[in-house]
């Protein structure tokens, strides 16, 4: 699937100290965002490497969720919201006039802070996106659902009860179900907005393993409030503050040797 993305010259805005042959899956240029008169993003330039985990950290309200919602144009749903700048998904300009928004969103899976399964059965939750794409054949649907659930490491737990309501799952299972739902439509990028905040420590660990596995095949963009988690799972880390991208680089470098004072304050906990 990723093979269909043309090679992207890893150019100027790639993270400092990036691994040599990492392609760029997603790029923003001068991205600014306003909710009414209030600016939530201020000229963000970011290049997310393909098939890596990039963590997005920053204090509450700094615009992390807003950034994610810009990338898949979910902010279009908010009436008083205005966007300026460019977003490139692969070689597609997300905000170009002829872009099909719903196709764009399919290519970028999104997992929300709280798991939001649909009030349908487990099976139908995963089938939802596939049916939209016109896949109606029962066997094909089942195969794809099984594959997606396996990728989200949920298959073994739910194989016997695919027709139960999705609400009957535990929170951790629901979160993986939501991931399976996103994976089923074969996205290129998976954005996760504080996906582990509702999980207990054990589930969180399992979840991080899942992230590692997924990173073999997908570009992951992970928002987290948990510094250890960012340090543990991510390859790259971006630090945001008050709508600005402050620092972006190799996770180890950023955590051990931040270039900016504000980054250091934040990761050492001197800043709320």
């Amino acid at each position, binding site marked *: 699937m990723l093979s269909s993305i043309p090679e992207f010259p890893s150019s100027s805005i790639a993270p400092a100290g990036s691994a040599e042959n990492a392609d760029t899956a997603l790029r923003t240029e001068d991205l600014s965002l306003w909710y009414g008169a209030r600016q939530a993003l201020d000229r963000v330039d970011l290049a997310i490497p393909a098939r890596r985990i990039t963590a997005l950290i920053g204090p509450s309200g700094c615009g992390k969720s807003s950034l994610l919602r810009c990338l898949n144009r979910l902010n279009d749903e908010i009436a008083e919201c205005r966007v300026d700048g460019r977003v490139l998904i692969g070689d597609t300009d997300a905000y170009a006039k002829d872009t099909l928004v719903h196709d764009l969103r399919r290519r970028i899976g999104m997992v929300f802070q709280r798991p*939001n399964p*649909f*009030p349908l059965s487990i099976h139908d939750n995963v089938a*939802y996106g596939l049916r939209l794409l016109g896949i109606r054949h029962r066997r094909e649907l089942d195969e794809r659902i099984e594959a997606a659930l396996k990728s989200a490491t949920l298959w073994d737990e739910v194989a016997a009860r695919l027709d139960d309501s999705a609400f009957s799952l535990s929170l951790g299972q629901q979160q993986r179900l939501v991931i399976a739902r996103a994976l089923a439509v074969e996205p290129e990028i998976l954005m996760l907005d504080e996906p582990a905040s509702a999980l207990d420590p054990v589930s969180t660990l399992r979840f991080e393993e899942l992230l590692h596995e997924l990173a073999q095949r997908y570009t992951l963009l992970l928002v987290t409030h948990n510094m250890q988690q960012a340090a543990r799972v991510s390859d790259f880390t971006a630090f945001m503050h008050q709508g600005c991208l402050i620092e972006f680089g190799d996770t180890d470098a950023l955590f051990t040797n931040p270039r900016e004072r504000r980054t250091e304050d934040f990761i050492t906990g001197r800043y709320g």
Partner: protein
Amino acid sequence: MTRRRADEAGTWVLAGAVALCLAAMLGLLGLLAGAGFAPLWPATISELHLHDGSTLLGEIVAVYDGAEALRISETDRIGGAYRRVPTADIAAQWQPADAIVLTLTDGRRLFGRGHAAEESTLLASASRPAEVLDIVRPNALGTFARFGVFARNLGRFFGTRPAASNLDGGVLPALIGTLTLVLVMSVIVMPLGIATAVYLHQRRGLGVRFVRGAINMLAGVPSIVYGVLGLGLFVHGLGADIDRWFYADRLPMPTFGSGGLLWAALTLALLTLPVVVVSVEEGLARIPVSLPEGSLALGATRDETLWHLLLPAARPALLTGLILAIARAAGAVAPLMLVGVVKLAPALPIDGSFPYLHPSRQFMHLGFVVYDAALASSDAIRGVSRAYACAALLVGVVIALNLSAILLRNRLRDRYRALET
């Protein structure tokens, strides 16, 4: 301290108001249940011995101050044999166990006493002959047998056509008329109501405020005004036009140019539209925003999100709206009086002959039977008890519908509690 006690006294008055409301509701339901079922129960037959030596056999139908009203054998016509007997004239009164009641097919009742042989003599005493429908010896019945008679009467009440110009027999045509009307109305109002609710849910701005304002305004307009619209615009306007274009050969006999099922259903659809819109919109608004966002993030268009996720998730709300609309429509009688309800319809609006549903036919309706039987029947006493029976049936249907709407609403709330926390 006195101040405190005065406060308590005020509280008691308020509590008394609540108690009064509850008492009114209980009294209402009790009265309906009692008076509604009474006509179906086998009545006791009394024999009155008067001071002048004569005896009267019949059913005591009312007791006034100082007098009793008695219905004796209706040898001639239904409702033509009431006697008002002053209490002072009565020497003795008892219930003979061998009393016989013969019910004729035209609704008349003949009373007699004696063995089985008496029955044919009794029948012969009728000055106008008719077939016998039923023979009962009510005073000799045990509790169990009484229930048997009650069940038989109930079956006849539900399952047969009216007899004796709606004084006797069943209410089947009225029941079918009511149900057909409500069904056709639902088929009209649901798509319109859902479309309007969806429009209000999706859009912002001036159009929405206008539509919502119009709906709010018209929700409070009395039903009779809808009836005026139905008669003036649908029957006299549209109906007359349809007749001129398509049924010119039948004129001056109106086809759609007089009240009928279709116009009544349309009128009721307008009447219930606000109920449906409000209920569906509320159901859509209650769905947490994380659901549509999840769907959009998966690559669904806004429209697909609505049809594949939101409307199915709001199904209980759609049902609630439908049920409330049906309850409101089933109770609305006034507009129907203008657009096609009749006391006795020659044919059902739905039957086995093509095209099965006959939208131009006039129809009967339970609510109208209540009105008509209570006020306009030739036998006031039978009319009122029949009106009560129909009223009990109508209220039973409407309350059942409302209760199911309440239950559904609660289920919808429970369903999303998982998502709301």
